[in-house]
């Protein structure tokens, strides 16, 4: 058998197309449809949006290349500056509170307390509720006349005057943030709870044996165990919150004035006026901020793995 193989002349190209390469080519063929799909559905719209941001495109016309004119125009407007600060404020403040609430509740229901299962289910409800319903409900609660919050305050005598929660600059942003925290904390809660449950109990027992108090056990055992999850959750939550549209739109539409104006709402207003070049520029202007978030989070995760 071996003699036969030795006497057979090798065809040209057979050396290159060995078994290893054939497997490689087959693998490429298998992943090609997925790559094409991703290129078509993700990469193309993404790159096209960046291109449009540099044009004066309006609805119904292809537009012309105008360089950074859209960005120059945006940076001149006070509303754009407000959108930057408002977006940062909402992301940072809601993330901090969602972390504290999510972590606290996760630690609570990770204990062996009565009704733990029911409590876990109830805590996930805000996240399970459609955003549209959730924020319209909050809008009703915030109504100056007949709204739940004012009724509580006035009926209990805590504050006798009607507060225009969404209509004043001082209270509009905190109101939006409160509703966003309420809707978003369950994601943090469930993620951290899952991480807590993956920490081996032995570690806690060993820490107790070593005489660690509750804070030391949290800092030395619990926190390292959930750190990765917190980083990923922070990253995802920040991106989602920065891109979120419905919480601001349904509550204040970016007002009063531009007190709660954020990037997605500003982009939407751009679309409403049919200047999609400008609208795309608003979205593209967010990219550096989001890119920094991604890079920081990724590097932290990498560092932890190393």
């Amino acid at each position, binding site marked *: 058998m071996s003699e036969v193989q030795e006497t057979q002349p090798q065809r040209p190209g057979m050396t290159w197309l060995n078994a290893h390469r054939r497997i490689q080519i087959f693998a490429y063929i298998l992943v090609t449809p997925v790559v094409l799909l991703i290129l078509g559905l993700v990469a193309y719209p993404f790159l096209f949006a960046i291109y449009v941001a540099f044009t004066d495109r309006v609805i119904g016309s292809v537009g012309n290349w105008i360089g950074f004119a859209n960005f120059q125009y945006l940076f001149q407007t006070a509303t754009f500056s407000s959108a930057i600060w408002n977006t940062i404020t909402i992301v940072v403040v809601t993330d901090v509170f969602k972390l504290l609430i999510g972590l606290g509740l996760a630690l609570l229901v990770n204990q062996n307390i009565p009704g733990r299962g029911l409590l876990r289910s109830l805590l996930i409800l805000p996240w399970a509720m459609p955003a549209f319903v959730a924020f319209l409900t909050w809008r009703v609660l915030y109504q100056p006349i007949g709204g739940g919050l004012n009724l509580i305050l006035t009926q209990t005598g805590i504050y006798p005057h009607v507060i225009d929660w969404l209509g004043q600059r001082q209270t509009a942003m905190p109101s939006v943030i409160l509703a966003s925290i309420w809707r978003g904390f369950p994601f943090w809660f469930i993620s951290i709870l899952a991480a807590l449950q993956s920490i081996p109990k032995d570690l806690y027992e060993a820490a107790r044996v070593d005489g660690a108090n509750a804070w030391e056990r949290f800092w030395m055992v619990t926190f390292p165990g959930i750190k990765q999850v917190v980083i990923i959750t922070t990253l995802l939550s920040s991106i989602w919150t920065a891109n979120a549209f419905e919480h601001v739109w349904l509550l204040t539409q970016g007002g009063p004035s531009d007190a709660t104006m954020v990037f997605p709402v500003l982009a939407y*207003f751009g679309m409403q006026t049919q200047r999609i070049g400008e609208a795309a520029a608003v979205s593209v202007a967010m990219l550096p901020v989001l890119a920094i978030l991604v890079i920081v989070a990724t590097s932290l995760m990498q560092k932890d793995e190393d």
Partner: protein
Amino acid sequence: MSAEYKTDLKWKNWSRRQVLGVAVSAMALTTGISAFSPAMAQDKPFDGSKLTYWGGLIFADEANKLLVDTINQWGADNGVETEVVMINQNETIQKVSAAVESNTLPDALDLSVDLLLLMSRQGIFINIDDLYKSVGDAHGGWYDAIDLATDTTDVAGGRTGLPFGASGNLLLRRTDLLEPAGFSSAPTTWDELVEQAEAVNAMPVSGLGLALSNVGDANVQLSVLQSYGGRMADDTGTKVTIKSEETRAYLTWLKNAWDKGLFPPGNATWDGAGDNQAYLSGQAAFIANTGSVGIAAKSQDPELYDDTAYSALPAGPMGTVSPMTPQVRAIPATSTNQEAAKALLEYLSQPEFLDAYYALAIYGPVLKDSANAEAFNGEDPIHAGLLNLVENGTAPGYPDVYNAAYADASSNFIVPKMAQRVVIDGWDFDRAMDEAQSQAQAIYDKY
């Protein structure tokens, strides 16, 4: 027995007269059919085709249903498979914009003249000069204001919209509150409005239910500004002139009313239904509205309907600015069934439909013959007000030049935003006017 033999037998039994008779009959039948076929084709020239229509959803369910049923009936009568989609008018811009970009516009649609003007510049709609003329000629002609306001010749080389209704703001007031306070007639000036509003302003009722948010309703503020002599731009329609003493006078009026606490809480974040809800829930003594609130009150709160009076918008130092906004139907250039769409639009302009539609809808007439419709006989105050608006209201944009830049600036809520800067952010008038001036000029410079 073969078939050929049978035939021979039959022929043999026929007389010459019978054969001739059959031949003549056959010829006549053939001629008849051939003559009748084109007639059938002419009766139903669009037989077997499809047509999609986007109707403007208004605050009157019966009117919406009538439009849908009429289009579907027209389709059934003409062998056209029709699909009618009613689009919330607050979402028309978004839906139409998305459809333009994705090349999925319907065969015909309803839209406001503002949107028509902006989109006609891009060649999105076909020229319907012939249809416009024939419909006008057949029904007493178009009202002058309608004719002027819907003329897209400058931007599109011809007319692209067929008007079917006119809307605009009326001033609605609560007579049950105002009459006991000593005000039996409508305020004729903005200052009088503040005076009357102040007299009935007591929680939970706010005197002035005017929107100051980033919605179309808040553009009433632009009319107030213009009635004070302020202008968006100069007579060339290119140079923005918001910053002026007249605008300062308007802002003074606004700030004065705001400081008196006459505006309902939340009016700076209202959506498109904010003023409707405030009035229907009894929280506003005055609102400026198209009349849809009156229609809603008629069915939801008859007592409120009876206690509501309607009048024209008050005047400023320069008179009344009460813009009338025509609604039009248009045919996208991408339609594959343009002739059928034209036929449908012509059909929808017939008095049989329009008169019935006006009785249910909240539109003023566009054709002079429609003034004879029952809806405009003066018995219904809302329709009477709408007819008055068409006959005596101001043209869109007046006294400004109504062009695409003006429509764009209005869509950007330049004046409501300036108002918010003053009352919400506490900016001084100059700073607020400067921002509005520069933002509006940036928009005008694009055209």
